[in-house]
């Protein structure tokens, strides 16, 4: 589909397909549009909120998640979705990714996964395969790629999935399920970068992806499945745990704080030297 608005993306970019999917998902959700907040970092993928009609917090590189945590804790009534690329989410923001999964909040984490830094023109990302050559790694990427799905399952994320920008119907169902899931949901979306990744192309993926028939509920089986890459690449819900309880969040927004409340904080014991 042709872009309806001017974007910063290259023609043919996988992000267009994801945007179309997100528009459809938002239109169908049993959630008011004005209750949805997208947070994002910096990068080509992180521009996503700018091209959708929702509330957004387009913050700094690597920092799509901490604002999402702050928003959810302040306003549990909002549907909070963090959206960024693999560089932003797993590289600059890698620790936030790990720590946010530990917080047991009802937020959705969507990652445009193209195994390359797009906006800075083609350097290795945390998910770039070993030995792939680029400007900053002329001798080939010396690092092992990070496996975001296995990491998410290991960290206790109760919903972990992989989508493919080349299969919009499947992706739409997946993202809808992730948003409606009560708990932290991670969807890593294979998104071909037509400018800088000449290996993981639409055609390359189409030959390899296969759909999981049903969500896996065993963590160890999920990790084994998340480990599949190369000849066969699974897409779908890698892990789903409906038993994992979400953290309860106290209402603070517009709940009055009275003079008596504050006075109750007088004559407290000191807790200095720390």
């Amino acid at each position, binding site marked *: 589909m042709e872009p309806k608005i001017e974007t910063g993306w290259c023609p043919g970019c996988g992000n267009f397909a994801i945007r179309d999917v997100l528009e459809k998902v938002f239109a169908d959700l049993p959630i008011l549009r004005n209750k949805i907040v997208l947070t994002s970092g910096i990068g080509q993928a992180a521009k996503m909120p*700018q091209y959708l009609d929702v509330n957004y*917090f*387009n913050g700094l590189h690597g920092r799509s998640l901490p604002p999402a945590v*702050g928003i959810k*804790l302040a306003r549990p009534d909002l549907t909070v979705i963090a959206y960024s690329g693999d560089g932003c989410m797993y590289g600059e923001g890698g620790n936030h990714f790990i720590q946010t999964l530990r917080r047991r909040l009802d937020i959705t984490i969507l990652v445009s996964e193209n195994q390359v830094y797009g906006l800075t023109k083609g350097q290795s990302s945390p998910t770039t395969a070993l030995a792939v050559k680029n400007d900053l790694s002329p001798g080939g990427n010396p690092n092992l790629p990070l496996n975001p799905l296995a990491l998410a399952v290991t960290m206790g994320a109760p919903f972990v999935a992989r989508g493919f920008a080349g299969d919009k119907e499947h992706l739409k169902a997946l993202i809808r399920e992730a948003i409606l899931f009560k708990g932290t949901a991670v969807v890593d979306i294979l998104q071909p970068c037509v400018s800088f990744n000449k290996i993981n192309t639409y055609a390359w993926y189409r030959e390899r992806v296969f759909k999981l028939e049903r969500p896996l509920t065993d963590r160890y089986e999920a990790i084994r499945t998340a480990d599949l890459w190369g000849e066969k690449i699974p897409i779908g819900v890698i892990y789903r745990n409906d038993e994992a309880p979400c953290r309860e969040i106290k209402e603070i927004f517009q709940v009055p704080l*009275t003079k008596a409340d504050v006075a109750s904080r007088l004559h407290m*014991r*000191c807790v200095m030297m720390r």
Partner: protein
Amino acid sequence: MEFNVLIGGEGGQGAFSVELELTEILTRLNYHFFATKHYMSRIRGGHNFHMVRIADHPVHALNGGKWEMIAALDDETEALHKPDLREDGIFLSRERTKEIGAESKKLFGEIRAANTALVGIILTVIGVTPEKMAEAAEPGKAEWLKKSGDFAVRWGIAGAFPVSAAAVCPAKFDGNQALAFGALLGGCRFLAGYPMTPATSILHYFSEAAEDLPVHFEQAEDEIAAINMALGASYAGVRSMAATSGGGFALMQEGVSLAGMTETPIVIAVAQRPGPATGLPTRTEQGDLNFILHAGHGEFPRVLFAPGSIVETIELARKAFDLSDRYQIPVFLLTDQYFADSVHVIEEEEIPLDVIARECPVFDETYKRYRLTGNGISPLTFPGLSDALVKLDSDEHDEEGKITEDPELRKRMMDKRLKKMGLLKQEAVLPTFCGAMDAAAVVLCWGSNRLIVKEAVERLNAAGLSVCALHFGQVYPLTPAMIAPYRLEAKKRICVENNATGQFTGLLKRELGLAVDHKVLKCDGDCFTVLELYRTLKGLLT
């Protein structure tokens, strides 16, 4: 009349517990006092000492003279501090404190009773009767306290330095407690932080408050996350704060810049400690003024407060949230280890209790987050309250909040943001003056030195020297109106700061063209004492 006592010991020996219990009971007994401490960056061992100045009038600084009493829980206390004991002062040697420990344990079966016994001995020395003590005792400790008087009687020190209780309805606060309390009054509902001395107790006070009030504390994975969480909560509609020390603030800088660009209200408390790098983690310094003043890339308006008393801390913390909200800017609260870890007594009637309630205006779908207005302030609302969508962007953006690279729009947006500085200057918080307007000299200071300088100047006045003091609770922006009434150009000007280079002195020159004749600086990790300042200033004035 006043009584200065030092309790020294290894970390974990109970000196801090003695200070805590003593200050609790002194407050209940309506005493004026000031307490502070010197401690090492370790949990057990080393040498820490706690200093309490008890008086029949308000006291808010270390006297700096000889001690009326020293209690040694370790051997180092004798070596380090006994030379500073008054000739007629009381020295509780290591042997005596051991004796207190052994007897308390024998009598009450608990070694903790020894701490309480030491508290009771100190109280007996200043003339508190066993009956009074029992009334003010902490639960279950009345007997321990009462019994402790026996030691004082045995050693002939009961009532050796009588002090009368002259406070009416006292409340005690440490600096960080006052800051957290003021934040609550300012409507702050969300604090995110990562523990770092000497800011951690701010986090503690908030996590405690969150137990039963509609506020939230979140322990972040690092300071970068902390400030970004706070900005997220602020965007969502909740007044928010981040609290840290210099090293943690170094990590927060990108968030400061983000707040500047996105015009997201946030208050950032920085409890300073000596740097560079890890520096002296548990000591004090005012070394981060320039850092905080310039923190964050790019140009955007900000306000820096550096309160110097408990009431001023409560009031400026409260005001910080109001300013931050109305102008949609970062506002900083600078404090330091000395002020954070010092306990002051104020009268309860001095404490403001009015909470600022935040307004949540509602708009329709034509709402633009960064609407260009005459004064640079765009109407602020929050997501999910109406059809208005709230779009926040760290890139340069248009009125709606969408990324732009248009040079004209960039210029207009910069003008819009910076325009707020003019309005902020108009409502600058004026400095606090003390002394005679026609004094021949003025001592300039900021932050935690306020009350040390005040007492030193009062003593200099009593000694016949013509000097006044001016304390800046707002250190940025500085405006000509702040100093206009005092004819500073006609006075000898001395600036007192806890740093090595005189950062505020430089700022006065840069912002107000005010040159200083003498700098009194200290960067050894300790605060000034009144006597120390009195002597230094006297040397400069005569």
